[in-house]
């Protein structure tokens, strides 16, 4: 008889994600979950359990270890959908200023250059060796218009 997990954050997460309660820590997801390689987890405290049971789940730095590979939800025998919960927690964390610094920097990079990764003079040199043109400038003005309208620009520029 499986024992139900008593989540500290249960009330909060359950309101939005009733399927969280179905999770009975069967650990099937841990078979395919890349995040279990990180330090904090054990057979009785898997990544998914850790994320679903944190007291203030949006402040849990472990949520950023999820790469949205969807393996946990595809293997879950009980249709718990951890990915949508984790993604919503990340959005909430970002909103409240708890996002991992790398995320904030990446967004800034995308909005100001149109590229998610930094462009360098070195790589333009390498591109030349392959007969390729230097990296082209992208339409940052359009990205600025979009991010202004959605409010993301203000959050990145004026964020905590």
């Amino acid at each position, binding site marked *: 008889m499986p024992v139900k997990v008593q989540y500290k954050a249960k009330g909060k997460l359950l309101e939005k994600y009733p399927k969280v309660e179905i999770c009975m820590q069967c650990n099937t997801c841990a078979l395919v979950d890349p995040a279990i390689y990180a330090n904090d987890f054990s057979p009785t405290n898997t990544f998914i359990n850790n994320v679903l049971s944190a007291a203030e789940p949006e402040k849990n730095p472990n949520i950023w270890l999820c790469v949205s590979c969807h393996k946990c939800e595809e293997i879950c025998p009980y249709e718990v959908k951890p990915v949508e919960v984790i993604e919503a927690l*990340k959005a909430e964390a970002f909103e409240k200023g708890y996002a991992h610094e790398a995320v904030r920097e*990446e967004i800034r990079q995308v909005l100001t250059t149109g590229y998610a990764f930094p462009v360098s003079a070195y*790589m333009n040199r390498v591109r030349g060796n392959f007969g390729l043109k230097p990296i082209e400038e992208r339409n940052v003005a359009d990205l600025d218009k979009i991010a202004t309208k959605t409010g993301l620009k203000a959050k990145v520029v004026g964020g905590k």
Partner: protein
Amino acid sequence: MSRKYAFFKGCFVPVRLPWVEKSTYRTLGNLGITLVDVNEFTCCPEPVGVGIVDNLTWLAIAARNLAVAEEQNLDIITVCNGCTYTLRNTIHKLDEDKELKDKVNEIIADTGHSYKGKAKVYHFIEVLRDDVGIEKVKNSVKRPLSGLTIAAHTGCHILSPKEVMKFDNPFDPTTLDEFIAALGAKPADYDMKTLCCGWALMTYGAREGAYRLLGDKLGNIKDSGADCLAVICPQCFYQFDMGQFMASRKDIPQYNLPVFFYLQLLDLAMGASLEEVGYTYHKIQNLNVVSKLEKR
């Protein structure tokens, strides 16, 4: 499907792996595919960092990219699992929810674009499978990669969610193995085929965990008798190449398993040299693999 595509280069290939961009032009050109350069494309945007924390901006920027392609009456070809994931998930979400589509169109209206949902998105491996066809790929091989055993790593975001990506079995994909065999090489049989490369662990605070993952996966690949890896996503490439280079300084054994983007392997099989496919820029170098390739 068409034989002319809008070339969605993404970010990582042009910025970090230009030799892959070069092999893409050369190999797909040889197979009769026309790649149209589209300067108006931006970052897809990257799904794990940007996409998740601000869903609406993610969808809006992606919708603008899709609109740019449809204005030219072209479907999109990608060279990255992440770009494919972003663009295909956007199509899925917007086509399913008219209200959301209208909202996104309202957001991108100032850019002069409008998403209608006409352009389709294909990863290059899907173009090879469903447009070009594996027989034509086989027939394009001039110097088979015989003697090499190659471990296929398909990567995560082209496989899942399977209802959206509709590419292959997320727990036992075989497409890439078939395309490795098409080049005359032997696909390696190993258990950890669908284990992630560990990019997010490396980037977001669990470097030791990422190294343990690399140690496990590369060890499993080595045990299978593989000479090298084949990937179809630039982040996977970098994690296995640069990541392996970093991890094997002290954290994991020296497996010395070179990593190739599938189109580099196709390029080699079509007759390109190791220099031409950019191997000299790889962090992991292995003389045994080089000698097998040169003895063909």
